[in-house]
């Protein structure tokens, strides 16, 4: 009896919908505020993302006649469901994720791609040239960054000798963060570049470059569907940052300050915020690349770095 209840609690409250939703919207708010200050603007208040999503939820849902299909409607739900599931598999409060012994690294990498794939499906089924073009660009970009990302993650897995994130966290608790491991440094750089592409941030916001193709795959979405897509995207930021935290920053580590016990989730959030702010900085100091330049960059620079780490970890 307790198991289904604790599962429901995990899915809906912590670290599921409520916690993840609140924190990721807040993170995006912080990201927007920090970006604004970097650009010498005042920027919106940090809870602006809540207002935006709330407004979208209350808006009318308009689907263009040629886009009316199950795929177009289900894409936001699929994206949203998959990305919340990732949060249940990440070590958020302690080395143990909410769902123990269910899935490993491979499943998480797979689930992290579902939002991208549902965005592409949504784009292709939206019957708009901008949506189709954005989706085709996204496919190209996916094949660019994903290789570097997977190889970088696998390098860490080989270093630990396990595919389980709990082992990653425990290993780092004993031997120090992988951030400081010189053999994994190229993998770290490669994955920072890859997540910039994964999260569609400048210089890799090519699939939704607003001046070129309006809003890419999201062009025809409106109202609650757009809000769901937006929340899924915001949660993806937190999930990817959380994944990076588990890979390189030692995951959630409880600590004591002056006798007060700070739970692991706080250090998890701080580390995630550090990664989000790193991506914010990168997006503020670069211009958008062209899709061919981006793919070339992923396959030459990022992939080489990741493979370098992979070889180093295997040999030494």
């Amino acid at each position, binding site marked *: 009896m307790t198991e289904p209840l604790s599962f429901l609690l995990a899915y809906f409250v912590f670290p599921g919908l409520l916690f993840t939703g609140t924190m990721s919207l807040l993170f995006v708010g912080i990201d927007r505020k920090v970006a604004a200050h970097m650009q010498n603007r005042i920027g919106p208040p940090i809870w602006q993302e809540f207002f935006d999503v709330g407004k979208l939820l209350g808006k009318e849902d308009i689907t263009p006649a040629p886009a009316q299909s199950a795929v177009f409607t289900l894409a936001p739900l699929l994206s949203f469901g998959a990305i919340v599931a990732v949060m249940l598999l990440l070590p958020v409060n302690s080395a143990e994720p909410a769902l123990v012994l269910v899935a490993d690294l491979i499943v998480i990498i797979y689930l992290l791609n579902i939002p991208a794939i549902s965005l592409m499906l949504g784009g292709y089924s939206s019957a708009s040239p901008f949506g189709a073009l954005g989706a085709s660009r996204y496919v190209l970009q996916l094949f660019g960054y994903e290789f570097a990302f997977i190889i970088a993650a696998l390098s860490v897995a080989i270093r630990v000798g396990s595919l389980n994130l709990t082992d990653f966290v425990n290993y780092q608790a004993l031997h120090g963060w992988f951030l400081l491991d010189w053999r994994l440094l190229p993998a770290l750089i490669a994955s920072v570049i890859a997540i910039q592409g994964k999260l569609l941030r400048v210089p890799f916001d090519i699939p939704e*470059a607003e*001046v070129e*193709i309006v809003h890419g795959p999201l062009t025809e979405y409106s109202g609650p569907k757009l809000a769901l897509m937006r929340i899924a995207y915001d949660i993806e930021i937190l999930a990817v940052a959380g994944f990076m935290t588990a890979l390189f920053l030692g995951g959630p580590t409880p600590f004591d300050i002056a006798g007060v016990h700070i739970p692991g989730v706080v250090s998890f959030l701080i580390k995630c915020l550090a990664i989000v702010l790193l991506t914010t900085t990168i997006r503020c100091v670069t*211009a*958008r690349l062209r899709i061919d330049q981006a793919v070339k960059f992923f396959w030459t620079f990022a992939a080489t770095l990741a493979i370098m780490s992979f070889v180093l970890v295997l040999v030494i």
Partner: protein
Amino acid sequence: MTFIIPVGPQHPALLEPEHFRFEVKGEEIVDVGIRLGYMHRGIERGLSERTYHQGLYLAERICGICSHSHNLCFAQTVERLAEVEVPDRAEYIRAIVAELERIHSHLLWAGVAAHEIGFITLFMLFWRDREHVQDLLELTTGNRCYYSMCALGGVRRDIRPEHLLKLKRGLKVLEKATKHYVDVATSDRTILARCENVGVLTKRDARDLCAVGPTARASGVDRDMRRDDPYASYPEIPFEVAVQPEGDVLARVVVRLREVLEAINIIREALKKMPTGPIRTKFKPEIPPNQATVRIEAPRGELLHFGISNGTNKPERWRARTPTYANFAALKPMFVGGSIAEIPIVLASIDPCMCCTDRVTLVEVATGKSRVLTMEELRRIPK
């Protein structure tokens, strides 16, 4: 297989409505078609129904950004029609405001260009520094936009001695900022990746398609109305014409930023050399039958006003040819062979001003004949 990407009339890359039809093969552009006319306001006709004094303000409203250029060009054409000489001090003030406007227009453009390549930070910084020149324009003319500085036979407002210090201080800030931006634009890797060898317009194409202004100068065509057909006080001020031979988007960025630096020097020189004296002469509104053409160098390139007077206080016919209109033909060689991702920056690189450009000709599709509408028919169209 090719398919059509419509850009406009509503599109985030366009600040004003205009329609472009891009025929693309994958990401590559094969052909481009342009359709104008969404912003036609009937200003040329409006000018011939107003007196010269009223027309001065209407001409200014052809363009919101290079408003002083239209204002100046209109005033000079009317003065040439009436054969009136303008006092020296007024000529200097006209040139100073024209150069301030050039700085404002180029910085605004640079911000837009940065936005087109997704460099939001640079966009914000350009527009932050543009505020300095806006302040200077407000100081000298009293307005941030639509300066209305020219009057027929002179200028409306004098540059007072207490303005000089503020002007000099503002110019110093602008000079420092612009020098920094030249460094950024020519060294930042992502900017170079997006601008170098993109949208190339060869010197031959630029000359054949009659490109004007910074677009032509970035393709190595050494043409500048301030030097080639001098007006206002430009003959007395030495300055250098910025020419770059490369013809790509980066060259257009560099030409404009160099022009900003040159404009700062021109203003400094003009403030130094400016004679004292009256700023306005008497102007009689009835102008005997005559014809006149004036060309000036607006921030976007050569601007031409042509007027015919008929003895009354209203012109018989007025014609304005704006720089963007002259540059549209040059867009095709820039686009063809490029990719979709280059559309916004290449389109922005000629600094298009759509509302300046819009012309309407009604053509019967079946017969190919064009016809002219009366004012009443034109008014009925939107309804």
